[in-house]
């Protein structure tokens, strides 16, 4: 399909996944995934551990390769074509469970690296932008420190700022708060809520149900590599249809 044709068909669909399958060796991890994410939409993905949530969102920026079906991100189809992959990765930011900051670079250098090397932004400009984002995540005073000198919550906020410095159209979050001590979860969630309120297209794997209720347009429940159920947060939490969803919700809400 030509890029223009794809764009016409999509309208404001930022991510379109059609009949997507993935295997790890003989293990069928993702089974017939279909998902449309509209621009500005905020989606929360939940489900038991090992159900394929990470694998699914990692397929969206091609950290994992799908073997069947189509994934179209921001009008670009993900194939083996490196140009397409790079184009998608420029527009899609990702925040990881374990932050994955670069320990040998300062916070500021972490934030300016991709703009300088991928977007070819001049260094001074990249630094100015980085400082703006560091201010937005409320840690400008840490700019010259190394990641190893920050707390977990601060590191994750740096990771968010680092992604934002590339001015992505879409942000992917893979359990951004699960590696954090309880008292640091809120500062990261607050940052994400702010981002959501500014209209960022987001897919967020998380078990923070409060966050889901506050910002999500849609909650998706996955189990054993399939999307079992999806709904608006209100309906999803108060009136889950599938019994696996009910079981999962009762487990995470009652503890």
């Amino acid at each position, binding site marked *: 399909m030509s890029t223009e044709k794809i764009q016409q068909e999509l309208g404001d669909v930022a991510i379109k996944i059609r009949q997507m399958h993935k295997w790890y060796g003989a293990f069928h991890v993702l089974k017939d995934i279909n998902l449309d994410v509209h621009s500005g939409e905020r989606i929360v993905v939940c489900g038991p551990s090992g159900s394929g949530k990470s694998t699914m969102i990692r397929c969206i920026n091609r*950290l994992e390769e799908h073997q069947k079906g189509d994934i179209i991100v921001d009008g670009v189809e993900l194939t083996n074509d490196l140009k397409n992959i790079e184009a998608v990765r420029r527009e899609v930011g990702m925040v990881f469970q374990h932050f994955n900051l670069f320990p040998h670079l300062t916070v500021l250098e972490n934030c300016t690296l991709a703009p300088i090397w991928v977007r070819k932004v001049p260094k001074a400009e990249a630094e100015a932008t980085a400082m703006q984002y560091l201010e937005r995540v409320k840690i400008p005073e840490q700019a010259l420190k190394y990641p190893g000198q920050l707390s977990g919550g601060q590191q994750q906020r740096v990771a968010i700022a680092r992604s934002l410095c590339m001015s992505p159209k879409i942000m992917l979050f893979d359990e951004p708060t699960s590696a954090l001590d309880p008292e640091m979860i809120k500062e990261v969630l607050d940052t994400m809520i702010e981002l959501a309120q500014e209209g960022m297209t987001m897919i967020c794997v998380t078990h923070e149900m409060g966050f889901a209720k506050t910002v999500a347009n849609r909650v998706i429940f996955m189990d054993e590599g399939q999307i079992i159920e999806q709904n608006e947060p209100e309906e999803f939490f108060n009136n889950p249809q599938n019994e696996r969803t009910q079981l999962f919700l009762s487990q995470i809400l009652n503890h």
Partner: protein
Amino acid sequence: MPEQQYEPGTHPDLPPPFAASGPVKWVRENLFSSPTNIALTVLAMFFLYKIIPGMFAWTFTDATFVAADRNECRALNSGACWAFIAQRWELFTYGFYPETERWRVIITFVLFVATVILLLWEKCPGRQYRFIVGALFPMVALWLIVGGSSTEAALMAYAAALVVAYFVYQRFGHNLSARFWFSLLAFVLVAIGVYTLWTAMGWSMLEHVSTDKFGGFMLTLIIGVTGITLSLPLGILLALGRQSNLPIIKYACIGFIEFIRGVPLITLLFVASTMLSYFLPPGTNFDLLLRVLIMVTLFASAYMAEVIRGGLQAVPKGQTEAADAMGLKYGPAMRLIVLPQALKISIPGIVNTFIGLYKDSVLVIVIGLLDPLGIGQASLADTKWQGLSTEVYLFVAIFFFVSCYAMASYSRHLEDKLHTGHKR
């Protein structure tokens, strides 16, 4: 005296008590922490007390520094006979490098030290020129040490061609590819032209010194420094190649590494000295020292590759994932994210390989090159100075120890400098 009381939340930061830091703490914790430890400390003290005075006397107070031969040494004093070393000092340093040309080696050495300081000392003035100096030094050193018309012709041709090609690249051609081809053409033409002219006219600024005259510490330094500077980049390429997705590159690298590691260095040196002349077309004069340098570099780079592969594997997968997710290409991701971390992890192993290479350079003795050990052995055959092997070997050992210890110390300094988190 009772401790002063503070309101909750108002306690100031205080320095640690004396016994919790400083030399007293160190001695208590490290030398007298338990009965076994006390016993060991006393035993070690006793041992040192027994041997150190004797060693000191032999080396310094009872030693002879000026004498004409062994017998005079013995008549003068009972300790070491350093007079021997003093007399052979120049041989140990320069080998058979012609006496009238030795100033060239001295200048090269001074330039070498200056370059090393510029490259390694972060606060050195003029550090912004380190890349230019680093690139120029090998050429200047080659010119100074070897000299001769054909060396100079090659260096001049290279330098002139580089300058002209750069000029052409700046001025001619409308698009990048035209400029590239123009400047490449200019490079080749100028290089051939200058080389032919220089050799045809027989111009020569410095007299040619053939490499078989090299010897002593100078030879060790040449082999060590060349091997060290070339084996690191080559080792990095081999390590990256070994991880390549392209089977040809991957198996070529694995084959090379495993072959070189599986063969003793001595064997490679013999190959360098004898067998290569069978493979090469007859009449080609392929300098023996150059062959040795190539073999030593290849040998060290195979070990280097494995050390660096270990470092690459120790960099968490999340680092490449984060780099990929940002849209960095393979090259920048490796250069900016993965390699700095992998190399930092591998510093001890890298320096270990450096030191090994440096010391292995004494093996060139088996193919007739005279490194300090070779000079020492040759000197011991002198009937005037018989029976002084302790002095000779100690002297050579001290030379090696000083250089190797310097490398080890710098590597520790580098590890500390590159440490960016909390020490655990």
